[in-house]
C-alpha cells in the first residue's frame, strides 16, 4: 500500500494516500469543496480559482528540523493567501479550512467574476437543472453582482463543432476540461482554445469537426451548457427524465449506461429514450461512453420496429396471433427433425441464447452463432482471469493487440489500453496497417494480411518484444477479426492462447485472452454453447430455419440464396429486415431497453440490464417467444421469469455456477465518487446503483491442465494477376441495423470504401475519392477509393457491414 497521510479538513480528521489532492481528500471526507476546472480523472491545472481554501501546514524549526509545538499541539502556519484545493497535494498534519469568511469570500469572488461574462440563459439551457455553475452559484455565489448586468461579452451561441456536438461560446467558462479530456484521456487533441482573456474560445479544426469517437463525454464533464450533443440538445429538461440502468449493446466492451426516458407527445404519449448516459463502472467503462454507444440508440424507437406476429399467406405477410404464429413455427420445426437449424446472433441476451440452445438440444436440431469470428471456446478456457481490471495495468505489465483496430471495434477498450500504456504498460500492436493505437505502442509489429498466426508464433522466438511480453508481471492479449474470417480468427486465437500459456499468463486476474467480438454478447453465446459455422449457406439450405436477432439476407447474397432454398423460415427480430421479408413467420421481439436480461462482455463480465421503456406493440422478449414455440413442440422451457431462466442457466453451465441476479446487482463503493448531487465534481455520469456485474472464472483459473486445441489455418490466398486480396476490416459507424436508424450518424457512417495502397491505385488508374466496382465470388458492390500507404500493394481493404458482403479474405477484382 502506498504511504498514507493524515490531515484535518474543517476539523474532520482523515487519512488518505500520499499524493491525493486536497479537493479529492475533502470529497473522501464528505466535504464538498466547489470546483470547476478540477476533475478527478484529469491532471490538475488550477485554472478557475473556484476551489480557494485556507491551507495551513505544521511549522518546522529551521535549525532543528523539528515540528514547532504550541500548547502541546503542532503549530500550524497558514499561507497568507488562499490556495487552490485542486492543485495542492495533502501533507502530514495539514489543516484545511473551507468554511472561513476568508475562504468564502474567495469563492464568492470567483463566482462573481465568472458571471460577468455568462449569459445566464438557464431557462433555455440544456444544462439547466444539472448545471454545476447554476448549483455552485446558488451555494457559493454573492447573490448580487457589483458589475453592470447588461454589460456582457456576447459571443456565438450556436456553433457546431462537428455534427454531433454544439458549442455555445458565451456559456463557456474556460475550464479546459473538454480540451484536457480529449488530450489526456482520449489522446486526440482535437479541441483547443483560440485567443486570450475574455475572448478565449473553444475551437476544433479537425475534419470532420470534433473528430473523435469520444466527443460526447465532454458534454458530461463540461460544467456549463457550453457543450451539448446534437442528440439531446433542446430535447428535454433534465428533471423530466427518468433513469434506468442498462448496458450498451453496440460492442463487446459492455459499457454500463443509464437510459434517460420521458413521455412524449411527439411519440403519441409513449415513453421514449431521450439520451444514453454513462453509468460508472470503474472496471469496465469508468465514467465514459463512446459516441456510438451514446448516439446509436435510435434503432429501438425506429419506425421499422416489428409490433405484431405475422404469417405468410398467399405470398404476403399477414398479421397473426401469437398462438398461430408460434404454432406454425413449432409444427415446421418438429416436422423437420434433424433438419431444424437455429441461427442466432450475439445481439441477444444470455437468457435468450440459452433457451435457443436448449430448444435445439431437445428438438435434435442445431444452434449456430451468426459470426465470422472463432475462438470463444478459448476465451472461456484461458480468458482473462476473474478480477481483471484494465484500469490497474501499468508499469511492468504488457498488452498485445493482434488483428484488431480497437478504436473502431471497441472504443472504450482503446481508451483503457491507451491509458494503461500511459501508466507504463508495454503496449504491443500487431496489425497489417497502422491504427490509432500505434501512437501509444511501445512496439508496433506490421505483418502482411495472411501472416497473422506467424506473427503471433514469432513471439516464441527470442526478441526484445517477446522478452518484454514473457517477463511482464501481467499480460493480456486482445485478438480481433481484421483481415480474418472464421478459420483465421480461430487459428489466431489458438496461437494467442498458446503464447499466453507458454509465458505463464493464464489463470490469474489481469492475464489471459480477450476476443474483440463483432457483437455485444458473442462471448455469452459461446458460453451457452453456440458456435459459428464455416459454411453457413450449406448449413441453411433445405432446412427449417429459426433466425433470431440477425439479418443474413440483408448481409450476404449467398445466404439470401441459401435461404430461398430453405424448407421453412421463421424470423424473430426487433426490426423489419430483408430477412423478415422472406420469412414464413415473423415474430416481433422486444428490444433490450424494453425488458430485463444479462450480457456477457468480452472480458467475460456478466452484467444486468433493466427495462426502461414499455414494449413495442405485442412484442415479447426473445426467451419468452422461444419457450412458446418449445411448448408447442412439447418441450418445457422457462418462459415467464428471466431471472429463473438465468438460474437454470447458472445451474447447467459451469462457469456461471453460483451466479444469480441478486449477485449481479451488487455494488461496491467506487472512486471517484460521481453522480450524486455534486454534478460539478465528476460530471453528469450516473452513479452505479444497479450492479457492477460479475466476471466469470475461466477454466484455467480453476486449475487442472489446460489443453489448447490446435487450429490449422488454411493456406494464405494468393490472388491472381489483376486481382487484389480483398480483406475485411471493421468500422465503428457501419450500416448495421442497430446503427443506421440513427440519422445523426449518417455522415460518420459515410459510403462504402475500399482502401488501396498508392501503387495499387496507380496500377488501377484511380485516385482517392474515385468510385470503383469491387467483385468477388458472387458478390459485387460499389465503393469509394481511399488511399492508405501503410498497407501492402496487393490488398484492398473492405469494411464489414457497409454493403459489400465480405466475411474473410478473398481474391477480388477492382475496376
Amino acid at each position, binding site marked *: 500500500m502506498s504511504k498514507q497521510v493524515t490531515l484535518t479538513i474543517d476539523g474532520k480528521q482523515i487519512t488518505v494516500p500520499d499524493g491525493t489532492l486536497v479537493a479529492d481528500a475533502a470529497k473522501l471526507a464528505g466535504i464538498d469543496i466547489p470546483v470547476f476546472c478540477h476533475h478527478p480523472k484529469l491532471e490538475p491545472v488550477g485554472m478557475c480559482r473556484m476551489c480557494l481554501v485556507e491551507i495551513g501546514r505544521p511549522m518546522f524549526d529551521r535549525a532543528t528540523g523539528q515540528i514547532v509545538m504550541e500548547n502541546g499541539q503542532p503549530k500550524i502556519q497558514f499561507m497568507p493567501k488562499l490556495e487552490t484545493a485542486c492543485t495542492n497535494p495533502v501533507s502530514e498534519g495539514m489543516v484545511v479550512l473551507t468554511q472561513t469568511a476568508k475562504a468564502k469570500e474567495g469563492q464568492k469572488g470567483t463566482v462573481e467574476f465568472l458571471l460577468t461574462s455568462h449569459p445566464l440563459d438557464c431557462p433555455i439551457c440544456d444544462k439547466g437543472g444539472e448545471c454545476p455553475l447554476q448549483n455552485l452559484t446558488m451555494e457559493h455565489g454573492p447573490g448580487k453582482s457589483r458589475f453592470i448586468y447588461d454589460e456582457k461579452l456576447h459571443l456565438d451561441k450556436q456553433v457546431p463543432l462537428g455534427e454531433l456536438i454544439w458549442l455555445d461560446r458565451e456559456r463557456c467558462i474556460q475550464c479546459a476540461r473538454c480540451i484536457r479530456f480529449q488530450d489526456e484521456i482520449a489522446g486526440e*487533441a482535437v479541441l*483547443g*482554445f*483560440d485567443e486570450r*482573456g475574455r475572448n478565449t474560445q473553444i*475551437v476544433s479544426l*479537425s475534419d470532420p469537426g470534433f473528430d473523435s469517437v469520444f466527443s460526447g463525454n465532454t458534454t458530461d464533464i463540461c460544467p456549463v451548457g457550453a457543450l451539448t450533443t446534437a442528440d439531446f440538445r433542446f430535447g428535454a429538461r433534465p428533471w423530466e427524465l427518468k433513469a434506468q440502468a442498462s448496458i450498451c449493446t453496440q460492442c463487446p466492451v459492455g459499457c454500463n449506461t443509464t437510459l434517460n426516458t420521458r413521455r412524449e407527445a411527439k411519440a403519441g404519449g409513449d415513453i421514449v429514450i431521450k439520451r444514453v448516459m454513462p453509468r460508472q463502472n470503474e472496471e469496465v467503462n469508468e465514467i465514459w461512453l463512446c459516441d456510438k454507444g451514446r448516439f446509436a440508440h435510435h434503432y429501438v424507437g425506429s419506425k421499422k420496429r416489428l409490433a405484431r406476429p405475422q404469417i405468410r399467406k398467399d405470398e404476403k405477410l399477414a398479421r397473426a396471433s401469437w398462438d398461430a404464429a408460434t404454432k406454425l413455427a413449432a409444427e415446421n420445426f418438429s416436422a423437420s427433425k434433424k433438419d431444424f437449424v437455429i441461427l442466432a446472433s450475439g445481439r441477444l441476451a444470455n437468457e435468450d441464447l440459452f433457451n435457443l440452445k436448449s430448444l435445439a438440444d431437445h428438438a435434435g436440431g442445431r444452434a449456430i452463432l451468426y459470426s465470422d469470428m472463432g475462438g470463444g471456446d478459448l476465451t472461456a478456457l484461458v480468458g482473462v482471469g476473474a478480477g481483471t481490471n484494465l484500469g490497474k495495468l501499468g508499469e511492468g505489465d504488457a498488452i498485445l493487440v493482434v488483428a484488431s483496430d480497437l478504436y473502431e471495434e471497441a472504443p472504450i477498450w482503446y481508451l483503457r489500453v491507451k491509458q494503461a500504456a500511459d501508466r507504463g504498460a508495454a503496449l504491443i500492436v500487431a496489425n497489417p496497417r497502422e491504427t490509432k493505437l500505434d501512437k501509444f505502442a511501445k512496439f508496433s509489429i506490421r505483418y502482411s494480411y495472411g501472416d497473422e498466426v506467424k506473427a503471433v508464433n514469432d513471439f516464441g522466438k527470442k526478441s526484445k518484444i517477446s522478452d518484454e511480453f514473457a517477463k511482464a508481471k501481467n499480460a493480456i492479449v486482445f485478438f480481433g477479426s481484421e483481415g480474418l474470417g472464421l478459420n483465421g480468427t480461430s487459428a489466431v486465437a489458438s496461437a494467442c492462447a498458446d503464447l499466453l500459456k507458454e509465458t505463464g499468463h493464464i489463470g490469474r486476474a489481469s492475464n489471459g485472452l480477450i476476443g474483440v467480438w463483432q457483437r455485444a454478447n458473442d462471448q455469452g453465446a459461446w458460453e451457452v454453447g453456440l458456435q459459428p459455422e464455416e459454411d453457413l449457406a450449406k448449413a441453411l439450405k433445405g432446412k427449417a430455419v429459426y433466425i433470431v436477432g440477425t439479418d443474413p439476407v440483408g448481409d450476404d447474397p449467398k445466404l439470401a440464396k441459401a435461404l430461398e432454398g430453405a424448407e421453412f423460415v421463421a424470423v424473430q427480430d426487433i426490426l423489419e429486415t430483408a430477412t423478415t421479408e422472406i420469412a414464413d413467420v415473423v415474430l416481433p421481439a422486444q428490444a433490450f431497453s424494453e425488458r430485463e436480461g444479462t450480457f456477457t462482455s468480452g472480458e467475460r463480465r456478466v452484467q444486468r440490464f433493466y427495462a426502461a421503456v414499455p414494449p413495442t406493440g405485442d412484442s415479447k422478449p426473445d426467451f419468452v417467444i422461444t419457450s412458446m414455440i418449445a411448448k408447442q413442440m412439447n418441450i418445457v422451457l422457462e418462459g415467464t421469469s428471466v431471472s429463473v431462466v438465468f438460474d437454470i442457466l447458472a445451474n447447467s453451465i459451469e462457469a456461471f455456477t453460483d451466479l444469480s441476479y441478486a449477485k449481479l446487482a451488487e455494488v461496491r463503493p467506487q472512486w471517484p465518487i460521481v453522480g450524486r448531487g455534486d454534478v460539478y465534481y465528476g460530471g453528469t455520469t450516473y452513479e452505479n446503483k444497479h450492479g457492477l456485474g460479475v466476471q466469470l472464472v475461466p477454466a484455467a483459473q480453476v486449475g487442472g491442465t489446460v489443453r489448447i486445441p490446435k487450429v490449422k489455418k488454411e493456406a494464405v490466398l494468393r490472388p491472381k494477376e489483376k486481382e487484389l486480396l480483398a480483406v475485411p476490416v471493421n468500422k465503428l459507424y457501419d450500416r448495421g441495423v442497430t446503427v443506421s436508424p440513427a440519422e445523426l450518424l449518417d455522415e460518420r457512417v459515410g459510403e462504402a470504401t475500399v482502401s488501396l495502397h498508392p501503387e495499387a491505385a496507380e496500377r488501377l488508374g484511380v485516385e482517392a475519392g474515385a468510385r470503383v466496382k469491387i467483385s468477388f465470388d458472387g458478390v459485387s458492390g460499389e465503393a469509394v477509393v481511399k488511399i492508405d500507404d501503410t498497407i501492402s500493394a496487393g490488398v484492398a481493404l473492405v469494411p464489414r457491414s457497409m454493403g459489400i458482403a465480405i466475411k474473410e479474405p478473398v481474391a477480388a477484382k477492382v475496376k
Partner: protein
Amino acid sequence: MLLEKYPKEVKQILSKYPPEHKRSAVMPLLYLAQREEGYVNKAAMQDIAQLLDVTETEVASIVGFYTLYHDEKAGKYRMQVCTDLPCALRGADEFLNNLCANLGVKVGETTEDGLVTIESVMCLAACDKAPMFQTQGPDGIKYHENMTVDRTMELIEALKKVKE
C-alpha cells in the same frame, strides 16, 4: 509546403529539439511560416501539425494565443493596442475608440490605403505607460508608450512616408 519551401530552415529548427519533444519547435516554425505574408495560412498550420505530430487545432491554439502570430492578412503595419485591465484603468479603451474614429475603421479593420490594421490585445507588459500599443511591420516590433491620439496620427503620417 513549408518543408519544400524552406527545407534548410525547417531542418535546422527541428534539429534544436530532441525528437520526442519536437512539438516544441512549433513557435519557430510558425515564425518561419509567417515570414512571407505576415500571417500563417491554413495550409501552413496543417504542414506544421504534420511535421510535429500534433493536431491542427493545437497549432491554431498557439497562433490564437500569441499576439505575435496572425491567421489573417493585415495592413503593412499592425497597431496592437493593449486594452487589458491596467491599461483600461488608464484610459486605453477611450484611446482606442478615438483612434478608430479618427482613422474611420473599427477594431480589427485596416485603413483604406492598406497601411495600418488596428487590433486590441492583452497585456504587453508596459502597463505603467498606458495608453500604449506595439506596431508590427517591416521594421519589426516597436513599443509606443504614453500615447495620445494626436501623436499616434503623427506616427501614422510618418509611416506613410517610409519607403520599402
